[in-house]
């Protein structure tokens, strides 16, 4: 966190100054580790085993916060008797179809709900993986009936608590030591510290970022953390919770108001051509008829969005122009698109503040894809590699790309920087902060808002005389934003007002998403943002200093939803509505006033008493009981076990990374059986056990960031004050690995995978350590991913080493762990480089028509392949 969020990290230092203990778990000793009280090195890719071990410790030693667990989680809920756990099926759960590599999740359901309509049908899982609908489920809380069978003594053999306990029984301290490389004493120290610092009087916060998400089991990583925090009663409580740091500035905003193929603003699902043929099907799917919770109003959110897009043209007669919305037909994710580009299926590409030539997995595939387009538009501050790959990319040196023959026409448009335009940033706490424009952009530099507004205006003008039905979707778009200034800059405040939402009749701004309607009388650009312009005041621009308000600081910026700072804060009080302790008082029920009160906005209906019990036939918001803090979940409880919503299992399971030197020793199933793979000549994968020749790539590599540089380097390699702070691409190796491979400090080395060989200067450091895993020593190396050919400091790109292997739920790439070889000296150049990498592939048995054995359950689970 200190490396990537140094300014936010000041609050960790502040907590430390007040006595908080900081534990840092990471494959590498970083600037965060330097100020931590405890540092735990572990093998990259083994975090589910590590956290699973802590869960096992908590359950076996009964260190869970029992009252919280019984009342607020689904620990007591009984699971279907058809469910069979991974412990009994060698790493698979019941319902696995090896043909499609997906699960029929009907056996995962709660008892008494099997055969329930909803997301349980098997045919849908394949579509779900294509369309990353896991993301939709995660935010929607999945669909199950609101009333379930429960045993609050937690003794029933099929209650979630017991199912969880059996599932994690294998994750002993000895297992953690063997699989993660973390000595038992160190591991138990972490368990004890975490468990002791949780409960009524104390809470522990779990902080993670992309070191967790970028794995083929990334979503399950976070699930494991969430389960542990729920067991310890840390969710929805001050100083607790799961803090998800994100990858860069305002990327939270770019999923809230998304540029993702599978989501619409406010995490509404992009319609699918089969599942959501009509407006009603779309609304029904989102609102989960019969469920508890606020998604029951999804029709209002969706229709208000359609009104925002198409205004007066959207009427009840034409289903509010629902037919204008594009439909998903499969996998439109960025990696599929890149492979489609290589095959010539895509004509054009817009890149805005994105540098996939350096920043995305499998750099060669990215560049070869971009070389096969009709046109490419790049908007950025500098001539980044994604604009110049055709003349100076690595493929030009090897001869794979000949500049004169590259058919892509590249348009580079200079972009305004963040100080040259106004608008909001949404950061990790869901906090929107309005930024003013400080200076006018120079020359031709323009903001994104200007670009898209005028592009849309010009496209509409071109299509004005069209009689084609398909052009109505563009022509009917509401596009009347006021503009100002010499460049006709559209008003960002007008856009924010539209996002907030207003009543069509009088354009009065809405105050809350509960005011959105499904009858066309409201506009709502993003339902979770409704309230940011309440009363016509730009709430995101508020800047009351912290010296003038309490620690919750509700008057600085605006957080969604409804300026609520701590989500699920109902859980900060016990089932009767009293704080769990004086020390951890946050929100509580004020009996006299009949309302929830405290320093924050209650994440609960303000006047719903803790004693409220919903009638049997209730649904939606009325079905939420007074002790159901997790109001977005269909049963109002935190899910220790997820009956729906995840494609790879109701509980997290240790699987090895797609590329690993080790055989999974916990189960026969080697890697995530449902992971998304692209078996393409452009995307070879290093062999992993049980495949032979895994030892051709015997080391583990991981990538991350340096404080001095920014993501794919477009904003730092070109700036001299930053470039000089870290002036060269380097690889960190332990002294032990340096000795083994004859690497010299400040000399050259190159790292090799089936995709590429990347050279870097060597930094031999004591901070990198070998680990003992599965009874043999393994080395890890670390690379920063900031470098490319452009700018003041240049170097090879680490992401060229990565293959495209994705988590099945959200299609994120596994860029935090892979296998490699490391050799001293520089890599070959020119066509010789291709021969060099091809030779590695040959020796590793990686052929063009590679078939990776993904389902390995049922084969003998032996430990470590011999050398």
């Amino acid at each position, binding site marked *: 966190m200190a490396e990537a969020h140094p300014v936010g990290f000041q609050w960790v230092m502040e907590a430390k100054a007040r006595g908080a203990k900081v534990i840092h778990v990471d494959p590498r000793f970083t*600037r965060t580790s330097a100020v931590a009280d405890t540092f735990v090195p572990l093998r990259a890719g083994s975090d589910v085993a590590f956290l699973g071990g802590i869960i096992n410790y908590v359950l076996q030693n009964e260190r869970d916060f029992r009252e919280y667990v019984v009342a607020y989680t689904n620990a007591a809920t009984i699971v279907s008797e058809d469910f069979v756990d991974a412990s009994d099926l060698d790493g698979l759960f019941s319902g696995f179809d090896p043909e499609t590599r997906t699960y029929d999740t009907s056996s995962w359901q709660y008892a008494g709900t099997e055969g329930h309509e909803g997301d349980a049908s098997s045919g849908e899982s394949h579509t779900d993986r294509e369309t990353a609908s896991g993301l939709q489920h995660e935010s929607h809380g999945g669909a199950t009936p609101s009333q379930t069978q429960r045993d609050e003594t937690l003794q029933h053999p099929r209650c979630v608590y017991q199912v969880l306990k059996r599932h994690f029984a294998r994750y002993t301290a000895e297992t953690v030591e063997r699989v993660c490389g973390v*000595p038992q004493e*160190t591991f138990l120290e972490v368990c004890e510290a975490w468990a002791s610092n949780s409960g009524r009087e104390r809470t522990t916060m779990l902080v993670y970022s992309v070191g967790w998400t970028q794995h083929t089991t990334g979503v399950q990583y976070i699930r494991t953390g969430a389960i542990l925090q729920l067991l310890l009663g840390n969710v929805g409580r001050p100083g607790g919770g799961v803090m998800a740091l994100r990858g860069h500035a305002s990327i939270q905003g770019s999923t809230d108001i998304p540029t993702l193929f599978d989501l619409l603003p406010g995490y509404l699902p992009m319609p699918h051509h089969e599942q959501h043929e009509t407006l009603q099907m779309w609304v029904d799917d989102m609102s989960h008829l019969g469920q508890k919770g606020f998604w029951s109003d999804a029709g209002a959110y969706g229709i208000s969005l359609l009104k925002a897009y198409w205004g007066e043209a959207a009427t009840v007669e034409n289903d509010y122009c629902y037919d204008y919305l594009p439909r998903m037909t499969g996998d439109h994710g960025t990696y599929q698109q890149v492979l489609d580009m290589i095959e010539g299926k895509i004509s054009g590409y817009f890149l805005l503040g994105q540098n996939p030539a350096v920043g995305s997995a499998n750099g060669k595939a990215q560049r070869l894809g971009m070389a096969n387009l009709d046109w490419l538009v790049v908007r950025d501050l500098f001539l980044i590699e994604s604009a110049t790959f055709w003349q100076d990319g690595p493929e030009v040196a090897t001869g794979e790309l000949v500049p004169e023959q590259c058919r892509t026409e590249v348009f580079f448009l200079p972009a305004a920087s963040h100080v040259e335009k106004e608008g909001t940033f949404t950061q990790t706490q869901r906090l929107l902060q309005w930024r003013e424009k400080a200076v006018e952009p120079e020359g031709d530099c323009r903001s994104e808002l200007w670009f898209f507004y005028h592009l849309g205006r010009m496209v509409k003008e071109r299509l004005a005389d069209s009689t084609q039905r398909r052009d109505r979707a563009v022509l009917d778009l509401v596009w009347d934003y006021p503009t100002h200034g010499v460049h006709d800059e559209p008003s960002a405040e007008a856009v924010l007002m539209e996002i907030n939402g207003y009543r069509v009749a009088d354009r009065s701004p809405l105050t809350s998403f509960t005011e959105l309607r499904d009858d066309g009388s409201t506009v709502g650009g993003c339902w979770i943002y409704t309230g940011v312009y309440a009363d016509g005041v730009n709430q995101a621009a508020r800047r009351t200093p912290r010296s003038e308000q309490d620690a919750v600081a509700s008057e600085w910026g605006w957080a969604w939803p409804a300026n609520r700072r701590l989500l699920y804060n109902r859980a900060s009080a016990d089932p009767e509505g009293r704080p769990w302790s004086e020390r951890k008082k946050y929100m509580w029920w004020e009996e006299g006033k009949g309302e929830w009160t405290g320093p924050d906005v209650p994440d609960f209906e303000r006047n719903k008493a803790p004693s409220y019990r919903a009638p049997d036939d209730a649904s939606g918001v009325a079905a939420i009981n007074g002790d159901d803090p997790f109001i977005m979940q269909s049963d109002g409880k935190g899910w220790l076990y997820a009956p729906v919503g995840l494609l790879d299992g109701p509980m997290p399971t240790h699987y090895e990374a797609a590329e690993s030197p080790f055989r999974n020793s916990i189960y026969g199933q080697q890697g995530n059986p449902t992971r998304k793979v692209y078996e393409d000549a452009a995307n070879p994968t290093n062999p992993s056990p049980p495949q032979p020749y895994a030892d051709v790539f015997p080391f583990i590599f991981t990538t991350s960031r340096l404080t001095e540089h920014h993501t794919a380097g477009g904003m730092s390699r070109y700036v001299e004050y930053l470039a000089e702070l870290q002036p*060269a691409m380097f690889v960190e190796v332990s002294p032990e690995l340096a*000795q083994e491979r004859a690497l010299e400090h400040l000399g050259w080395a190159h790292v090799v995978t089936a995709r590429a060989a990347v050279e870097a200067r060597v930094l031999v450091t*004591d901070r990198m*350590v070998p680990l003992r895993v599965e009874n043999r*020593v393994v080395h890890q190396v670390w690379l920063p991913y900031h470098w490319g050919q452009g700018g003041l400091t240049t170097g090879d790109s680490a992401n060229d080493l990565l293959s495209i292997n994705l988590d099945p739920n959200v299609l994120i790439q596994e860029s935090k762990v892979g296998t490699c070889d490391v050799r001293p000296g520089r890599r070959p150049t020119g066509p010789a480089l291709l021969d060099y990498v091809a030779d590695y592939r040959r020796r590793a048995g990686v052929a063009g028509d590679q078939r990776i054995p993904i389902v390995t359950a049922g084969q003998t689970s032996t430990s470590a392949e011999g050398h």
Partner: protein
Amino acid sequence: MVSRNSLSGPLDPAPDAGYVDPPARKGFFTDTSVCIGCKACEVACKEWNDVPADGLNLLGMSFDNTGSLGADSWRHVAFIEQSRPIGEQSPPFQDLPTGPGMGTESQFLGMPGSTLPGASQDGRTDMRWLMASDVCKHCTHAACLDVCPTGSLFRTEFGTVVVQPDICNGCGYCVSACPYGVIDRRETDGRAWKCTLCYDRLKGDLEPACAKACPTDSIQYGDLDELRERADRRLEQLQGSGVTEARLYGHDENDGVGGDGAFFLLLDEPEVYGLPPDPVVTTRDLPDMWRHAGLAAAVMAASAVLAFIGARR
């Protein structure tokens, strides 16, 4: 004995320099125990003061590619990796397979190691990474100021020491005088440059750029008296919690430079950070030197006289 224009001993430099009713002396307290090595101080300083970049050099001194203070680096963050614990930190590498011979090949090739000479190569259990942002000390008795022949270097009303680039003639006397090796001549224009403690910002009631940018308040700016009190409390707190190597540096007004306007809290010996353990203002011994020279001259003269008298007989 301290008197007006003393070259040593405790002193409030601004009144001593002739200011009537100057503001309280200003300075830095840099608490290196909370530095996270982000280098925002280096960048903020260069941005505000328009200091040129000084080259793309991978120095390999851990994450330190700046190297040292100089004409083009007025803040410098040092990084020191040590196989030692901080306070009561648990050893992060205990029971791990470290040390020579770990791996498939076991020849020791005499690689330059990152452990200190003499330290054990047989495995390592502890790890600590010290980070510290160094800066001009703005000494109470500033040798650079004392030796400057043009009057370019002067003492401000805030007690800080500033170079006036339009007067500096690049003679370089200040460079050899500084006991910390801070001030230096810029290659591209020959003049001496160093930290001004953002004199222009102080005049506008703002804090220096580095202090403003530092996210963890490692760099603290304020009245020097108050900073010294804060530092004493922080030292007590750290030592009380088991960090016994914590110490203050440059805080003592009886040291060889009369105490620094920019002082530090360190977690090891000054030499570990590249700082001189016992800095002395090079002009401190001037009065003594003149006395000795005078005495020598007098003895020479007396000897000459005696020689003549002797010769006449």
